[in-house]
């Protein structure tokens, strides 16, 4: 190791679990059951196939093969009758559009081929999402081709015509109005000006209808707090790019907190070590989150202490800025708070304090802290505000009672599914079933029992406009004709408002409505309609109706009142924190197999949710901390009050002891393929005590059961055997020496001219067994910045969609047969305990258990390194994998005979063997085996068959396309013109694709960078993927030898030497272990 830290992927590795040790020695974990089959005498003996049968089969087989080979299938080539002017078969079209599902928002560009949307990328023109997407948005294109979507309007499950449904619903509404009762239109937070206009038109036409906004996970506390503090019920727009000091108390702003998708790029920008003011990030949290895993200082605190942490920070800041302190805020991690406060105060006006509690008191104090620090106006804006998350928790929570009482007799659901996501969903569903009228615009029959299902279009079939952040507009346009007989919800509302006729399924009515608004009423820039569509997003004065509420006088809340409200938190029993996983979010994409199979960045588990628990607590309960093929997780029963559920338990380093975490979005039973119904719905554990929906609940009981459950995790797959592949350093050391943390490795050699003067060894990069091959025209490569990579997984999904990577399912994942071409390794790092020396030959890390309770985390995307001296190429017996003159390691599927030698010889473990024909295979009922799902496949990439190796091709199809367009225009390929799918999806630009031969290119500059290093340079394979050292902005040094002498940092085997250079690496994290 390059420093005295230990890197481990899980408890299996930390504790050298025997199964893990046995498995890591093999590239292919499972042996083929040859012995088992042939060794079984009785089985073979009872086999019914005799010699004559064998000959018959043989004869038939040969004849059939011969006949099949001779008969050419007749293929039809059917041209358009009238070719659309804009479509050229074989050439993709791109349309600007927008993704919004109530949870995530991003301006996107949709790639279509022959009229089929096949890929989503971020629209860099957007000042809000800044070209960023997340895994869910990347995967959303597959949702369009989901065969489980509702295909037409239904009533009670039976098809009913649209006009019949309209008439019946209108009659029912009139009946409700005549009886003096109410109906409720329950929607997701509406950020679209035109949708709001359509809703208003509907409400005006039907005064008995009341509109309530509902967010499954609420952030109302922030709005209420700003109402109290500034008289404006707003959520400020956050600019992480300007922040130099970031303090987050329980807010996972990189995944799951507010509009997290658009915070990533700013965050990464602020954290560039080349930036004169690299930000320092302090995280105080309970569950190991994506933001927490990227923090410089992460303090592990209990959920119940988050309020006190806010008070403590308030006091620390107030004390230093001459404001009055408040009572409370005594915490055991005061040291950590003081350190964070000190840094924030040193960066006044450039800091950002955020808090994940949906609690008006906590948010009020946070607002005041930001105010005292002068952060409003730079990193937070009260004028540019986030229009998302405008849900009214109190109204939503009252709704069930109002329905039961008969006051509300009609319910129309748009973009929400309270029957799944409300904590009292059962009671809600009962009440809803008894209503006179219940309508849902959902795209499939869901948990909420609606009489009428009037399916909405998929977002790729819809027209809409958005103003997610005030003044920033984005348009949504259809990229395909609606696949089914669906109708856009807005058009339905307009029809009901009497403002439109149902035209056809192409919802021209709503388009005209919207167009009229934009072109005639609301067109501040005087643009043409076409330019709106072309650009997709633009800035303008905020639309008048976008301000959520009119300014009202500040509330009477005071800091001390808020603090005292925060201090009384119950601490009995286990604390439950509900969090969102990168793949599932709120569960909107539950039927998306690609997202289900995306390993969670932190736990690396696919297809399931589970209880995350501190290893310490698991030991107490006697639960199994290991994960592996033979290691099933123990199932415990978790209960709060009368809500009870059984869930498997996973050891989560960094989880505060005494707390557990459960991911939302799982256990969706309706309208899903069977394999997508795994997991348990955790929404019933939502806390409603303060009249808001809070994802933190208290007083839970945990009981061990006799059950066990197999989780499919990838964390032990493709392990790098503890080799030195993650490199990190501290900012101080980096500033002193750009090469700190990745000093060049040296090697003994007899070739004297390779050895620099004054040294006795040569740098490894100079020593080479092979003759170098010159790549004259291009040498493609990539740079991956470990410092910018937040581990979000967008690249994995993007690669999946771009390259027709099959989904293999939970069972196969458990056999270590995941097919991801690109994986993001997550490493925990913890300090070596000085009391035990790391002994050669004894790789037992057990002694480091205590520091490992709250480890630091590093993410490392690994794909094929396209080695110039690729070890896979030399062992292929059939030359199926060869090297190109442009530096690519090519994989020719049709030559591959599946010996798998290459995978066994790959030091990076990036080759995947295709075990089955995943397409057209009933056993893999994901998306490749039905005609609808196949429409998402990229026609430029082969769908691989069984028995071949596959791996990252560096998106060679895009390289070829980019080269062709340059050749056609007679120019050289411009830097940045070609983007691999992963680079394109990366919201933080951690992945940069380019040409090493382009001297002025970005990649060349990055490769010459001090932070750059190659994975396992010592094996001499000369990769074309360059990594950038991770730099943590911590005060403590990593203990890298700063001198030019590199002797101490050779390799694993010399690790014991490295301890001689131990730095003062202690107390970098809280060792707080309260119960």
């Amino acid at each position, binding site marked *: 190791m390059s420093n005295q830290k230990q890197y481990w992927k899980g408890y299996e590795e930390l504790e050298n679990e025997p199964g893990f040790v046995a498995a890591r020695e093999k590239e292919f974990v499972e042996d083929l059951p040859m012995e088992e089959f042939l060794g079984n005498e009785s089985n073979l003996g009872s086999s019914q196939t005799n010699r004559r049968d064998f000959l018959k089969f043989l004869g038939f087989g040969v004849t059939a093969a011969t006949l099949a080979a001779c008969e050419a299938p007749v293929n039809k080539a059917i041209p358009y009758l*009238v070719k659309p002017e804009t479509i050229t078969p074989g050439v993709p079209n791109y349309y600007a559009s927008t993704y919004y599902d109530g949870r995530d928002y991003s301006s996107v560009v949709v790639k279509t081929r022959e009229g089929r949307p096949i890929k989503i990328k971020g629209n860099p023109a957007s000042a809000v999402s800044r070209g960023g997407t997340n895994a869910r948005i990347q995967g959303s294109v597959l949702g369009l081709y989901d065969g489980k979507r509702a295909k037409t309007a239904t009533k009670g499950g039976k098809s009913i015509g649209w006009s019949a449904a309209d008439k019946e619903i209108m009659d029912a509404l009139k009946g409700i109005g005549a009886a003096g009762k109410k109906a409720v239109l329950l929607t997701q937070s509406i950020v679209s000006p035109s949708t709001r206009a359509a809703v208003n038109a509907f409400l005006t036409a039907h005064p008995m209808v009341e509109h309530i906004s509902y967010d499954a996970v609420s952030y109302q506390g922030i709005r209420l707090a700003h109402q109290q503090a500034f008289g404006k019920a707003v959520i400020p727009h956050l600019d992480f790019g300007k922040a130099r000091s970031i303090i987050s108390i329980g807010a996972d702003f990189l995944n799951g907190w507010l509009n997290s998708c658009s915070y990533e790029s700013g965050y990464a920008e602020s954290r560039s070590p080349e930036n004169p003011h690299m930000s320092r990030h302090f995280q105080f949290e309970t569950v190991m989150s994506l933001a927490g895993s990227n923090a410089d200082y992460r303090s592990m605190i209990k959920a119940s202490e988050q309020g006190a942490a806010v008070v403590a920070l308030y006091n620390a800041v107030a004390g230093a800025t001459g404001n009055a302190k408040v009572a409370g805020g005594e915490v055991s991690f005061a040291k950590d708070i003081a350190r964070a406060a000190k840094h924030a105060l040193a960066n006044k006006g450039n800091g950002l304090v955020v808090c994940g509690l949906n609690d008006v008191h906590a948010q009020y104090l946070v607002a005041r802290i930001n105010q005292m620090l002068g952060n409003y106006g730079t990193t937070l804006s009260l004028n540019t505000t986030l229009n998302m998350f405008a849900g009214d928790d109190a109204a939503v929570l009252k709704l069930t009672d109002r329905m039961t009482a008969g006051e509300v007799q009609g319910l129309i659901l748009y973009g929400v599914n309270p029957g799944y996501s409300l904590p009292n969903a059962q009671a809600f569903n009962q009440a809803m079933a008894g209503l006179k009228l219940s309508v849902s615009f959902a795209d499939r029959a869901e948990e909420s029992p609606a009489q009428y299902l009037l399916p909405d279009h998929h977002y790729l079939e819809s027209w809409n406009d958005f103003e997610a952040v005030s003044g920033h507009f984005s348009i949504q346009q259809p990229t395909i004709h609606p696949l089914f007989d669906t109708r856009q919800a807005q058009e339905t509302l307009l029809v009901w408002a009497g403002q439109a006729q149902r035209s056809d399924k192409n919802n021209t009515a709503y388009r005209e409505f919207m167009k009229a608004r934009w072109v005639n009423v609301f067109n501040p820039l005087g643009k043409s309609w076409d330019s709106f569509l072309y650009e997709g997003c633009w800035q303008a004065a905020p639309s008048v109706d976008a301000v959520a509420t009119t300014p009202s006088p500040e509330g009477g809340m005071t800091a001390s009142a808020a603090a005292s409200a925060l201090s009384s938190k119950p601490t009995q029993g286990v604390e439950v924190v509900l969090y969102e996983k990168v793949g599932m979010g709120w569960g909107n994409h539950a039927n998306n197999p690609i997202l289900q199979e995306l390993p969670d960045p932190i736990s690396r588990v696919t297809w399931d949710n589970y209880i995350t628990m501190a290893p310490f607590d698991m030991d107490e309960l006697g639960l199994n901390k290991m994960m592996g093929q033979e290691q099933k997780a123990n199932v415990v029963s978790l209960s709060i009050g009368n809500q009870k559920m059984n869930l498997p338990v996973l050891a989560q380093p960094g989880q505060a002891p005494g707390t557990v975490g459960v991911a939302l979005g799982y256990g969706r039973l309706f309208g899903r393929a069977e394999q997508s119904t795994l997991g348990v719905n955790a929404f019933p554990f939502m806390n409603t005590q303060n009249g808001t929906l809070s994802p933190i609940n208290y007083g839970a009981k945990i009981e061990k059961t006799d059950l066990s459950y197999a989780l499919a995790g990838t964390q032990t797959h493709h392990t790098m055997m503890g080799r030195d592949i993650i490199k990190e350093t501290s900012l101080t050391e980096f500033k002193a020496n750009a090469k700190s943390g990745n000093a060049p490795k040296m090697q003994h050699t007899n070739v004297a001219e390779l050895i620099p003067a004054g040294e006795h060894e040569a740098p490894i990069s100079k020593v080479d067994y092979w003759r170098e091959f010159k790549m004259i025209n291009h040498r493609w490569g990539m740079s991956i910045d470990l410092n910018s990579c937040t581990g979000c997984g967008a690249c994995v999904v993007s690669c999946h969609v771009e390259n027709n990577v099959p989904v293999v399912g939970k069972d196969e994942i458990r056999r270590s047969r995941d097919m991801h071409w690109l994986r993001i390794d997550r490493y925990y790092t913890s300090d070596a305990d000085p009391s035990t020396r790391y002994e050669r030959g004894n790789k037992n890390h057990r002694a480091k258990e205590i520091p490992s309770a709250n480890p630091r985390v590093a993410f490392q995307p690994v794909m094929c390194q396209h080695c110039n001296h690729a070890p896979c190429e030399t062992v292929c017996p059939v030359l199926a994998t060869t090297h190109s003159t442009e530096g690519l390691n090519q994989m020719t599927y049709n030559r591959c005979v599946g010996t798998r030698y290459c995978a066994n010889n790959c030091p990076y473990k990036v080759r995947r063997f295709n075990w089955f024909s995943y397409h057209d295979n009933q056993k893999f009922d994901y998306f490749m085996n039905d005609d609808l799902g196949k429409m998402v496949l990229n026609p430029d990439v082969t769908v691989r068959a069984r028995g071949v190796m596959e791996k990252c*091709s560096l998106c060679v199809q895009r390289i070829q396309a980019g080269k062709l367009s340059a050749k056609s225009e*007679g120019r050289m390929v411009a830097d940045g013109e070609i983007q691999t799918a992963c680079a394109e999806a990366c919201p933080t630009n951690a992945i940069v694709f380019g040409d090493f031969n382009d001297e002025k290119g970005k990649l060349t500059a990055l490769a010459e960078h001090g932070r750059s290093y190659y994975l396992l340079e010592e094996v001499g394979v000369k990769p074309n993927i360059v990594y950038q050292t991770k730099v943590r902005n911590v005060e403590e040094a990593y203990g890298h030898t700063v001198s030019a002498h590199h002797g101490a940092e050779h390799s694993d085997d010399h690790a014991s030497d490295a301890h001689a250079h131990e730095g003062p690496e202690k107390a970098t994290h809280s060792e707080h272990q309260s119960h």
Partner: protein
Amino acid sequence: MRNVLRHARLVLVGLILALPSYMRAEVSAEQGKQLFKANCARCHYVTDKRFVGPGLAGVQDRWSDEGNLLAWIRNSSDYLKTGDSYATKLFEEYNGSVMPAFQLSDDEIKSILAYIADPGEEAAPATASTDGAAAAEGGQTGGGDNTLLTYILIGVAVVLLILARSLNSVSKALENVRREKAGEEPIQEESINVVGKTVAWMAKNKRITAVIAIVLVGALSYKGFVALNTIGVYEGYQPKQPIAFSHKLHVGQNKIECQYCHSTVEKSRHANIPSANVCMNCHKAVQEGPQYGKNEITKIYAAVGWNPEKNEYFKDYAKMDKEELASFYGSYLGDEKAAAAVEPFIQSNIEWVQIHKLPDHAYFNHAQHVKVGKVECTTCHGEVGEMEEVYQHSPLTMGWCINCHRETEVQYATNGYYERLHQYYKEHKGEYEMREGQAFTVEKIGGLECSKCHY
């Protein structure tokens, strides 16, 4: 067999095409009428009525010089280059639509002009060509029968042989039974003797036997290998297309550029099959062909919904009654058989049969080859202008691709994309000279690498 067919068809087509040439002896209005019908009537009327091109009544008066008129008719695009003001005006007046070139002698053109000058009575639309089509089709069916006949004959022969042999053995057996009863010697099996003799001969001449055996095995293996190599190679594949579209007429005779119809060839990986609206650019006006008359063109009309009687598209074609349409096109064609052939096209797509098909794992890009590589269409597709019906000219095997990549030179000096490469060789004279004398082929820039075509 396919070749036999092709030859038969070639002879037939040749005969049909040769017919008019017998009559091209001298300038006569009668001959002019025939020629006019064959070549001009698609776009011109003999009256002064405007059609695709101008009405031709009084055309000789409009052109001061007869020589110019003849040149104009023979090849209008060439004549336009002379800058003749009247011709240019005419060209612009008709929105730049080019009159195709004709391979007609001066005498023939003069006879057409003679006909135009005195057309006599307006002739009814020619229907004679239908016979040609029928004849062609007949030829084809005959060919099909021939194939079948051969197989039947072979089959019958085999059956007869087996029958003869078994009858022979039966009679022998009966004879043996008779002899056995009579106590005579049974008939000696001659064949056994032959086998025995052969074996004895082989035992004596082991070397010759070995040589013969090796040669036999070698020859069979080679034959087998060659045969296996042709599996999946469809060179010469010539399926029957739903519409008897003649490339020979359109490309060879009318000189329409390939890209006019296959317009995406420089933009996309696919060279598209033209959509029906491209056909309609010309066939709104050209409603009859020289060979099949209205029959084939009407198939396009049936697909897109063109009313050739009113010269307009049907409104709401997709919603019209299919049977009504069938009877409409039937009465338009006035021929039951032709009408039946048109019926499947009504309100539906034209399902061409794909001829050139690469396997899914091979990526081929037309734009790369045509636009960048400046490869002629005919290099791979053969002389399409001479094909009545298109067939696969090249084997489209990987070996064939590779061979071309080995031989074709990259035009790197004229394309800015290769600047870095060019620069490198200029700077590294040594390496460049080493390559001198060798062609700078596609192979040299990695054109044989796997992931150029397989990904």
